């Protein structure tokens, strides 16, 4: 769909935007990330390292949303039962709805091996691995979910969040709450006293499901990209971006829903029949809430809200990976660091060698891979921008100059978000940024 397209430079005058060079690259069908073999190697390597823990994240998010649900003491919510490790991914394996990855539908072998032996490479009881933090860090996934819940009110994408306030949703949630706590007078008594608190917990559970269903798609997409790179059929950064764009459209209509199981009974809190889709109710809200906004990193820096160091409006929040200063993040043990720690376990050998030869080698590998991750997410964001341009505006090779100008205005408006000093768009243009 977005194959090689010649730049429309003869038709339009050059852009005068601060990021004119990047805008011209987008107009030529490129990515915000420069097309170099080094960038390609880095982003594909990190996509693979991301996809393995993501294979755990989506399974556990669905497990929590569907089974753990309102357990008041969910101490074992990160202990994924076999049923969810075996849950077939809808986009991998022989029985896939649409086979995005040629690999298997059940949990990835590297994930299973890590879950068994951990970083210590020793078989120990699960509980010891857990307490030692030698495990997949679901706290990162939950932080992403909370970002979506918190920013969901005003992002303007999809109809998911508004549905959480509807009477229909409240009725569905009420049925599930009563069924879940059937025979538990203490919890039912609390529910009678504080119904809104329980409802808000169910809303959070609905976002667990939303994010789980979103990542169920992304894990096989990243695995397939890694396989194509390894076999030599993905050779440029724009090809990697186009694969993502095509994937976004192919899976766009995937249903987003929230089911809860109490025993064998399924309670449809958000039924598939609402017509909610992966692109509009999950992917676009995810990108906005997680890549751009999130919330100030706790524990790394003090913010003075009165001095306007934190924006008044949530829409102006800029604490996502596209803005992150990876160094303090990578040293403070907060959720993005936990993701880096998770990815560290699954780096392909070529990326480990690459990091060893640079900066402080193994000593600052978390920081180096965090910056690689930032590069890779600029490429994913480019895919989203190109997909939106395709859906809302005009083809890049449109012969009508008025249409091309509309495309340019769109690209310029998107890149305006990276004018603020915290944005890393300038940095990822340079290879020395590591």
């Amino acid at each position, binding site marked *: 769909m977005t194959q090689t397209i010649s730049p429309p430079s003869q038709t339009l005058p050059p852009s005068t935007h601060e990021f004119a060079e990047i805008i011209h690259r987008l107009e030529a069908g490129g990515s915000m990330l420069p097309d170099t073999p080094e960038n390609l190697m880095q982003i594909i390597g990190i996509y693979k390292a991301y996809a393995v823990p993501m294979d755990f994240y989506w399974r556990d998010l669905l497990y929590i949303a569907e089974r753990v649900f309102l357990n008041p003491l969910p101490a074992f919510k990160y202990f994924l039962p076999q049923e969810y490790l075996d849950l077939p991914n809808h986009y991998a394996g022989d029985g896939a709805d649409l086979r995005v990855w040629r690999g298997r539908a059940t949990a990835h072998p590297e994930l299973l091996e890590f879950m068994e032996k951990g970083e210590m490479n020793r078989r120990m009881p699960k509980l010891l691995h857990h307490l030692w933090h030698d495990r997949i860090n679901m706290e990162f996934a939950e932080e992403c979910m909370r970002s979506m819940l918190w920013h969901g009110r005003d992002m303007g994408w999809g109809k998911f969040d508004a549905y959480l306030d509807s009477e229909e949703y409240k009725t569905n949630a009420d049925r599930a709450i009563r069924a879940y706590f059937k025979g538990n007078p203490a919890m039912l008594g609390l529910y009678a006293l504080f119904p809104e608190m329980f409802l808000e917990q169910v809303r959070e559970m609905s976002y667990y499901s939303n994010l789980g269903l979103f990542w169920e798609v992304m894990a096989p997409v990243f695995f397939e990209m890694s396989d194509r790179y390894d076999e030599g059929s993905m050779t440029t950064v724009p090809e990697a971006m186009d694969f993502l*764009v095509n994937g976004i459209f192919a899976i766009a209509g*995937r249903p987003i829903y929230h089911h809860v199981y109490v025993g064998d009974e399924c309670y449809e809190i958000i039924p598939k029949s609402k017509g909610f889709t992966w692109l509009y109710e999950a992917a676009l809200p995810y990108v906005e809430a997680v890549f751009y906004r999130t919330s100030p990193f706790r524990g790394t820096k003090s913010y003075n809200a009165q001095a306007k160091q934190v924006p008044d409006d949530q829409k102006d929040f800029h604490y996502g990976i596209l803005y992150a200063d990876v160094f303090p993040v990578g040293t403070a043990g907060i959720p993005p660091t936990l993701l880096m720690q998770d990815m560290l376990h699954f780096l392909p050998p070529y990326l480990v060698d690459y990091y060893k030869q640079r900066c402080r080698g193994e000593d600052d590998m978390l920081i180096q891979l965090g910056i690689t991750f930032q590069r890779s997410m600029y490429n994913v964001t480019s895919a989203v921008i190109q997909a939106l341009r395709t859906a809302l505006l005009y083809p890049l090779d449109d012969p009508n100059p008025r249409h091309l100008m509309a495309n340019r205005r769109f690209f310029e408006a998107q890149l305006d978000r990276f004018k603020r000093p915290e944005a890393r768009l300038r940095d990822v243009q340079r290879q020395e940024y590591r």
Partner: protein
Amino acid sequence: MIVGARHAVPLPANYSIQPTLNHTPMPDIVDIAVGADNFKTLVTAVQAAGLVETLKSPGPFTVFAPTDEAFAKLPAGTIQTLVQNIPQLTRILTYHVVAGKLTQAELAKLGVVTSIEGSPIPIDTTEGFEVKNATVVAAEYRSGQLA
């Protein structure tokens, strides 16, 4: 397939032909689409979504109908995913339907219409006739004829 909605359409938009089908008592929209050669994918999708009866109901409706060529431009798998998920397919299809029988001139005057699905559809007639970002080249099929 994308003509209908600003924020709700997961499909690309650069269709070369976007006829407007207007409901008239006999034959109805579905009959007109079936009779035309270039709406085979749309008709199949409408049948899969079980929307035939809805579109055959008195209405009237205006449908922004993507052509087969437009569907063919979608990335592999897009239609497959939608056909596997009927409520989602139905929602996408209803982006393309507006209540009432609207002519090109009436659409131009309105500037924006609301789809059955609920999303707004901007109409731009400053240069040609564009519905959202899709150029309409064959407007107003009525009784199987181009009006």
